[in-house]
């Protein structure tokens, strides 16, 4: 006859043990209710098989036993969350930095923006026509010209400084990525080791999911879980960032081994760094260029690279780089180069004497002097400015100087500071080669003022625009506004996506206090019932003992 008293006691004890474990698990879940990335744990419980009664007709069972402890996780939801994190990282960084650029092109407030400065300059030149020898009007022209070059330098330098900051930040982001990759490799090793010995590496997996989400904020990658529980992280081209227990550290370099010539400068004159992997050594590097690949993905690093711009090592100009900041700077530079060439060329006037080689200026100032080649707008440069020696400020002169300078927007200046030197007059002497510049003549000023409505072909690197200088500026304002709006929209969409993905993930994985407290009551009642069963079993045994 079976010993039912012992069975009752055994089943009760097993139940009390199981309920305590369940209560303990609930306590752990509750304590981690606010832990980022924590996935609630569930303990499987199952009926214990009664070995003694196997095969018998009366298979009552022998209580309950604990099964596996499981994380309530869903790989697809975790993947969705990582995807949303990547897009948010990408959108946030672009939006933040474009927000720093945008005030330079403000529509309201101080009139120091390029558009207003340009307009005020031409207005001042036009007003000189009322009384060309009036010093006050001439001073106004010089002040407005100074405002114009200041606003150009300021706008360009703002963009260039932001690009420089982004260039620095690429290095910091890669350091963070390398740190995460290394931590992931370490966690992979711990998970692999623990699970190989049959112990569930639950906490390590939680930590790894948190790290994967953090890494996804920085860079986009694909994951693949291996049978031993480790996760491999690969870039889009299959480059393994983390391969089981090994992490590959990315390297940011300004002297990649694949560069065969001098690398192009950035807007501020430094070298735009490349994100690479060095298959060689520090002494003998062999870099694999991953810059474009990363840029085309998502994550903060992609956002940085796209905004900062990337450039082919074979390029020679900072404006050949691809990126939104470069596109904005290119527009400013195109305007600057037009001021330096077209405006300066007009400022000298038509050739006074075709019989003499080189352009003989037909414009003159109050002192009777004619302007130099870069007579109105000049730039800081110690080399030969009129490289082709034709006496006309032209794009070929700028291109010759640009090979060692890069940009002109940060070094453009007004050629003189004496208002009498403003050449408002054109030659009144009909004799070829002889000039007279009456003080009250404003023909040259009128010719310069007319450039405000003149259509130019602005062309620099891959950028091309046909219109007036003001139209170019207005198009730049639209470009900046559209880029910032798109970035803001990306942020809004990414914010909504990450909220949705987080909610979906938490719907499945997060701790619900309601659920845990309800479970607690359930487990507590079960524990109380089991304890009562021990008492009942004791009473039964007492009855039996009393019969003896």
């Amino acid at each position, binding site marked *: 006859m079976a010993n039912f008293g012992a069975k009752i006691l055994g089943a009760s004890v097993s139940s009390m043990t199981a309920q305590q474990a369940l209560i303990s698990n609930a306590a752990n879940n509750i304590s981690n*209710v606010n832990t980022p990335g924590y996935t609630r744990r569930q303990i499987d419980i199952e009926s214990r098989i009664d070995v003694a009664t196997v095969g018998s007709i009366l298979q009552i069972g022998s209580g309950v036993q604990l099964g596996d402890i499981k994380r309530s996780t869903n790989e697809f939801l975790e993947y969705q969350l990582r995807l949303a994190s990547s897009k948010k990282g990408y959108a946030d960084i672009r939006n933040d930095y*474009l927000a720093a650029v*945008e*005030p330079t*092109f*403000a*529509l*309201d*407030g101080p*009139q120091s923006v390029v*558009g*207003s400065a340009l*307009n*005020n300059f031409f*207005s001042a030149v*036009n*007003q000189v*026509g*009322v*009384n*060309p*020898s*009036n010093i006050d009007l001439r001073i106004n022209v010089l002040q407005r010209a100074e405002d114009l070059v200041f606003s150009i330098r300021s706008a360009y330098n703002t963009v260039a400084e932001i690009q420089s900051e982004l260039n620095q930040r690429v290095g910091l982001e890669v350091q963070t990525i390398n740190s995460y990759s290394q931590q992931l490799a370490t966690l992979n090793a711990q998970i692999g080791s623990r699970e190989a010995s049959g112990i569930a590496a639950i906490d390590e997996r939680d930590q790894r999911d948190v790290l994967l989400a953090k890494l996804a904020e920085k860079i986009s990658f694909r994951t693949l879980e291996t049978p031993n529980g480790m996760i491999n992280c690969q870039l889009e081209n299959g480059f393994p960032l983390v391969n089981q227990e090994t992490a590959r550290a990315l390297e940011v370099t300004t002297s990649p081994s694949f560069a065969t010539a001098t690398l192009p400068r950035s807007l501020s004159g430094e070298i735009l760094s490349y994100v690479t992997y060095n298959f060689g050594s520090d002494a003998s590097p062999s870099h694999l260029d991953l810059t474009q690949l990363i840029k085309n993905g998502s994550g903060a690093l992609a956002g940085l690279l796209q905004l900062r711009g990337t450039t082919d090592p074979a390029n020679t100009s900072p404006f050949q780089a691809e990126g939104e900041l470069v596109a904005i700077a290119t527009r400013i530079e195109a305007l600057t180069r037009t001021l330096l060439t077209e405006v300066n060329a007009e400022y000298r006037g038509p050739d006074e004497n075709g019989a003499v080689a080189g352009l003989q200026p037909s414009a003159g100032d109050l002192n009777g002097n004619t302007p130099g080649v870069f007579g109105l707008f000049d730039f800081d440069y110690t080399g030969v400015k009129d490289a082709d020696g034709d006496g006309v400020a032209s794009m070929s002169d700028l291109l010759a100087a640009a090979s060692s300078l890069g940009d002109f927007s940060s070094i453009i200046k007004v050629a003189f500071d004496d208002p009498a030197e403003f050449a408002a007059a054109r030659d*009144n002497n009909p004799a070829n080669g002889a000039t*007279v510049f*009456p*003080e*009250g*003549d*404003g*023909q040259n000023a*009128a010719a310069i*003022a007319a450039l405000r409505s003149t259509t130019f072909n602005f062309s620099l690197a891959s950028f091309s625009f046909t219109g007036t200088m*003001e*139209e170019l*500026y*207005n198009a730049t*304002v*639209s470009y*900046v*506004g*559209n*880029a*910032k*709006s798109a970035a803001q929209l990306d942020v809004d969409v990414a*914010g909504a996506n990450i*909220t949705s993905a*987080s*909610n979906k993930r*938490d*719907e*499945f994985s*997060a*701790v*619900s*206090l*309601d*659920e845990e407290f*309800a479970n607690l*009551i359930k487990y507590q009642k079960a524990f109380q019932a089991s304890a009562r069963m021990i008492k009942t079993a004791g009473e039964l045994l007492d009855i039996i003992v009393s019969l003896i």
Partner: protein
Amino acid sequence: MTRTSEIQSQRQLVSQTLENRKRVVKFANQVASGVKAALPSDTVDGGTIARYKQTLERIDSYTTTIQRTKSLMTFQDDVLSQANDLLIRAKEIAQQGANESVNSVARQHLAEEVYQIRDHMASLANSTYQGRFVYGGVDDDDPPYDVSSYAEPASGGASKRYVFDAELGTGTARTLAVTDDLSISITTPADQVFGTAIESLERLGRALGGYKTTPASGAPDGGGAAYTFPSEYDQQTADILSTINQLNDARDNDILPERVSVGGRLRRLETGESLLALTKNSALEVLSRIQDADETESAANLAQAQTALQASYSVTAKVLRMTILDYI
């Protein structure tokens, strides 16, 4: 079964509260600044707003130019008015002097007044406006008329003559683009306005004063001997009479047409100014429509956003305070 964890509720509530706060800040800024598009990304019309701003700045600049030019034109009108009065008076003197009842001595007395008129006329031709000679063409740092002298007499009013400055630029009129579509001549060279007047006054003065002027027509060359009386009394009378025609020519062909022209240019400037004002109003209206915040709408939106924010606070506080612990 759909689970809802505390962290989800919290995230959702906080997210909605932050969104409502963002809306409150946005509408508060609109109400405070009166502008709904301060940055290019605030609107799809960033480039258009920049263009209208430039248009307004350009209109302000053109308006300033027009006002300066109008002032110059008004000054010229005053000068021409005086010149006209001088010629009328000179003609009266000439008619008086041509009367044969006036003897040569009386004519000499009349000559003094004519010389004064001539000098005044020359000073009008050499008028300066803001330190520049208005009728000096583009060479406006020098007076258009310089003083020269006759060989006979060697002193006195009749010895002085006014010669048009031969410098390059003195005879060149100055034009100015006052708006995109309006370009006007703002000065006329002195010889075209005052040349005949000064010349005829000089001839009249010399004739009344008892001296001939050579050549018989055109600009005086500095020569001209004294009349011999009484034999050349009739010639003197004829010379005086001939200057009346010249005075008429100066007035009818130079001074009055120039004055009409100045008046016409003033009217064109005023028309240009009115058009600029219209364009400015139109540009301001469009700019206001695309850039300025509708105060009523912004205030209503702000009130709505504030209500939503208060509701968010209330709901968040209530929902997050609820716990099953209160019931067990």
